[in-house]
């Protein structure tokens, strides 16, 4: 079983947290801090396993993590999971993110935490590995996104419709201007993608991909 999945950056700022066992919010934050403390002081060329922190279940649990550029992906698992398997799973997850966000970077995770969650939900469910085939994961995520889009098409045009109605009615002098700016806001300026997850395609040496 996977007990928790934590993603945080090099400064310990959480980017995604997913606990499969209940902890109160302050406890969650403590766990993040402790985990960050444990993980961040390790060199990049040491092994990726850690005996679990004291807060998250002690020695029964292992922290298995990978460090990509600015982000740490930490999985807290118990003895029923294969260590190398989980390492591969992290790889699969990150590669999936890379596919779904097209060249993923930390900013993607920052601004689209919800989407990252939705992707993760297709990989791990309730602490158990649900799917390891990247193509299958991507396909399901895409389908759901398409569904979401089909639901929102109405709403995309809705502001225009509102604007139209406002103009027709001639009232609400302020409204048109606001509506216009609202429409403008729809096209968000491109978020700079400067922080790239570096060597996204590093493979675990001598591990055949699943």
């Amino acid at each position, binding site marked *: 079983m996977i007990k928790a999945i934590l993603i945080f950056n090099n400064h310990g700022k959480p980017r995604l947290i997913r606990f499969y066992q209940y902890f109160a919010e302050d406890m969650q934050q403590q766990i993040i801090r402790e985990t960050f403390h444990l993980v961040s002081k390790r060199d990049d060329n040491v092994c*990726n396993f*850690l005996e679990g922190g004291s807060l998250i279940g002690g020695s029964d649990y292992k922290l298995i993590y990978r460090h990509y550029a600015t982000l740490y992906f930490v999985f807290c698992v118990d003895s029923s999971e294969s260590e190398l398997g989980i390492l591969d799973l992290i790889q699969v997850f990150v590669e999936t993110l890379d596919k779904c966000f097209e060249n993923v970077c930390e900013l993607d995770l920052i601004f689209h935490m919800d989407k990252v969650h939705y992707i993760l939900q297709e990989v791990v469910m309730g602490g158990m590995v649900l799917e390891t085939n990247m193509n299958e994961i991507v396909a399901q995520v895409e389908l759901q996104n398409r569904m979401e889009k089909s639901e929102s098409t109405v709403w995309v045009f809705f502001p225009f419709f509102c604007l139209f109605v406002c103009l027709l009615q001639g009232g609400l002098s302020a409204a048109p201007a606001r509506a216009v700016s609202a429409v403008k806001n729809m096209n968000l300026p491109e978020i700079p993608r400067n922080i790239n997850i570096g060597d996204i395609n590093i493979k675990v040496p001598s591990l055949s991909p699943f």
Partner: protein
Amino acid sequence: MALKIVKGSIDRMFDKNLQDLVRGIRNHKEDEAKYISTCIDEIKQELKQDNIAVKANAVCKLTYLQMLGYDVSWAAFNIVEVMSSSKFTYKRIGYLAASQCFHEGTDVIMLTTNQIRKDLSSPNQYDTGVALTGLSCFVTPDLARDLANDIMTLMSHTKPYIRKKAVLIMYKVFLKYPESLRPAFPRLKEKLEDPDPGVQSAAVNVICELARRNPKNYLSLAPLFFKLMTSSTNNWVLIKIIKLFGALTPLEPRLGKKLIEPLTNLIHSTSAMSLLYECVNTVIAVLISLSSGMPNHSASIQLCVQKLRILIEDSDQNLKYLGLLAMSKILKTHPKSVQSHKDLILQCLDDKDESIRLRALDLLYGMVSKKNLMEIVKKLMLHVDKAEGTTYRDELLTKIIDICSQNNYQYITNFEWYISILVELTRLEGTRHGHLIASQMLDVAIRVKAIRGFAVAQMAMLLDNAHLLTGNTQRNGICEVLYAAAWICGEFSEHLEDPMHTLEAMLRPKVATLPGHIQAVYVQNAAKLFATVLRKQEGAPDSQAAQETSQLLIDRLPLFVQSANLEVQERASCILQLVKYIQKLQQKDVEVAEEVSALFAGELNPVAPKAQKKVPVPEGLDLDAWINDPPSESESEDEKPKAVFAKEEPKHTRPRHPEVDEKELARRREARKQEQANNPFYIKSSPSSQKVYQDAPGVEHIPVVQIDLSVPLKVPGMPMSDQYVKLEEERRQKERAEKKKKEKKKKREKRGRGKKGDSGPESEEDITPAHQVDIVTEEMPENALPSDDDDKDPNDPHKALDIDLDKPLMDSEKLPVRTHRPEVLKSPAEDGDGEPAQAEPKKRSSKEKKEKKKDKDKDRKKSKEEKKKKKHKRDAEPEEPVEEQMEEPVQSEASAEVAAPPTSTPTEEVEPTPPETTSTPETTSAAAPESEPEEPKDTEPEETKSSKHKKKKQKKEKEDKEKKKKKRHHHHHHHSDGAGDESVQNGTVEEEEPLPPMSNYCLLAENSYIKMVCDIQGNLQDGSQVVVSVIFENKSDCFLKSMEFNVLDSLNSKLQRPEGAGPHDGLTVPFQLPPGVSNEARFVFSVQSIVMPQKLKGTLTFIVKSEDSSTHEKLDFKLHFTCTSYLITTPCYSDAYAKLLESGDLKASSLKLEGVNMPFHHLLARICFHHHFSVVERIDSCASMYSRSIQGHHVCLLVKTSGETVSIDAKCDEPSLLGNVLEEIKQTFSRC
């Protein structure tokens, strides 16, 4: 109006979305908290709006804030709202938020049951998927119970996407609701062979999780897994299965034998390291489980070790780490094969990766032997010197001590070496394990008598150099060592060479800077030393020295008397006075040494850590009883408690009577020896070592003499312990030489016999300890109880899943299905109405049977009473046209038995539809006992069904007879001992006149075609459900069909509709009514608040079909949910009742009824019957009654009658509920 909508949606455009929030937080780095609090205020505003899009946006932002550590549980209800949106986009947001912040304590979770059920059965697979994912994170026991059946159905969904999710979530359901495991297991097993690899892997996953906790229940699956293992190519699945086998093999060695071959094949063939690693792991598990006698398995071990060596030598740190991990498993059973890789493991100690070093350390712990202990510890000591960072150094320190002290110092051959190691370890700066070293020193000094002389010398040296250790006075710092040093020097002061010097060292002013508890030991042991010094000095001619020593103490002790630490102060002043007194005596030239040393005579033996706990309580000793009577005031205070002790154990006060003591001691020693001889766990000094001790170099050779005690502690260059390593080598060589000589002698004597021993490395047994290691065992109380420590955690959720899965499924284990007919319900009128013209006894029996089933756990007497009532009732309902009933025997039977689903009645062509129309748990179990038990909607051929019916009936009858017998018996019993003090249940008093007929069914609506009467009862199993039983009676000459029952839901009460039905859809009544026939249907309502009565408007639509035409008709009605209908008859014992009343949590209220003209027992029976109370106790004209609401409110009544006035005092934890119930009681009695 339109403008308003427009304005609202424009406003929505200005709401911050998640991205805006994140951006805002990033722009307010300095005052983040403040910014977020304004955002939360905005979110609160947004949540108040009606627009679901706005709400969803707000909830999405809350999810983000939750990640940052903000508690968002206050918005739980809004999250539920968003979850129930019909749009996937919002639903997904809602479920995500719920999965992040809901947990078992979230109270709104109970509101989600129906929503989740609806989503689970949604035609859109992603709605279902999202619901399953969310549910997997916040499933509670209640949700698990209510939804288990729905999820189980999803396990056979057409879409693999849903199937795999449903399979996975079953594990969570099992954890929360273990009863579901057995009914669901066959299908789960089926899924192991699902065509979709994802589903298959999910099933393997779940079963592996289950089996890991309770492997023995899953042994029967081994062949199936074996097949999977040899056929599957999915590495994920393979890894899981192989891991599972690792858990199974210890239970079934034969399985292990079978596994070895395919596993070795995999090891040779696979290129995936993860798979290879798991294979090796499982092979190790197999080898452990097999008896080591198998010869051909050494090859497997070699293969494993060899593969692991490759892993450890790999440049990838991860593989190295895992290799070491697996190595440590082999070590436990096959230490020899690992020990040959000692070089590799020692190499790993130099690794830059701390986890790897720690793993290697773990391995070393198991690898030590008598032979290599010194060498390994020497290496470790080198690492201690090199190690940077206190954590790792501390880890090394504890490991060294662990390694040396394991198994009662099994591997230590030279304790002097060990003491010097400990002394060397004290040089560690900044360690937090001073305490550990100290306790080791104490332990060794106390338990190894032969070492005491040496230990004392070393400790004296430590004390002398105390200034080197006092730099670190923090708690548990290295200065703790001084505690041990002082104690050892004091206790074994007879071994000291220069006690005077040590005494002076212990009384240095600098000691006052040590922690209090150490100072206390210093002071106490200074007194012991003083006694020793005195004895020595008194023997000498120069008597002045003794007086000088006393003076020294008198000069130095005042420093401690002033100590802030109470214990130091107390001890110091006590000893100071003692010394002053001694000095006085000395001045009179009295010999005091003997008496002073008597103060500290006697030997302290180590006590086993758990000894105290294991002292059995002697028979007849009550630990809670007063030993003496509690002190009365008259007793004078001046008799001190000390006196009590003295009286009780006189030998403690005068322990120095040598003769008595010696005898006693000798006797005890003898007894102990006897016991130890019989105790296999007692380490006896082995005869061989005894022998060797005699002809070995002997104590004279102990190199104490070679150590210059005045050498400062920090020896530059070679540490002391190294000398021992050398000496030990020499000693061993000598020994070996001697042995060889002997061997040769022997050989000469008996040629051709002993060939062993002269070639190859010496074996373990050949190394003999340098000195007699007479480890004193720790004392245990005589007849100590055997260890009974239960390490299992009683709270482990997996304990509940220890369920035998091979037993055939029983009817009672069916998963609860949502139903209109919960089994606990009773409806007195139901069979009275529907009963065909069967023979009277049969009718009764079937009813009794039902009665029985319904309230198995309830009081028998009560059911009897009910039966009686029902009989009356039946008599009182004469309007049944008997002939017409005859035409519909099957149908009425169905209703009478609450058994057959309506779909099975031969006259009907109703679609076999939603589960809630069909099945009570009883129903399904009766209908399909042998078939796939988890198929609630199972539609069997009607024939088989009816035949089954018959069978069942016969069985029932049989049962009934038995039950009747029992009942009669009970009845008699009751009569015979019918004493007044026995509480009377439910107003049943057999002697009194019969009760008038009563019915809870009241008219719901009526027109010329149909009459509806209904009864409303709470559902015991679900605190939020109420079941309405409606009897439909066809009053016309036409055939009534397609009846649809619909109710306008209120906020508080909702009709439970099948999955997929809209909130305004009606429910099809599951039968048709031929002319004159009546039948009953039940409908479940979910209710939130039960404290107020309420009314629901509803409509029944139906088609009236006469011979020539058919018309559509409708009938409006009003359902009245009284507060009474939320009460459930619950028996209560008088003591529990009294406790409840005493608790003071209940609010009181009262009611007076005038002009009630009926016998008291009738009155009680009425309250019992109409208002679902039970009588707790009845005394004359006064009775206490109890009932419980479906949500667990307690309602207590005290009913008193005098003349025509009845007063009811009532208490309840919910005042408004109580008020309403009383009001309803009042109405009941005003009606009659």
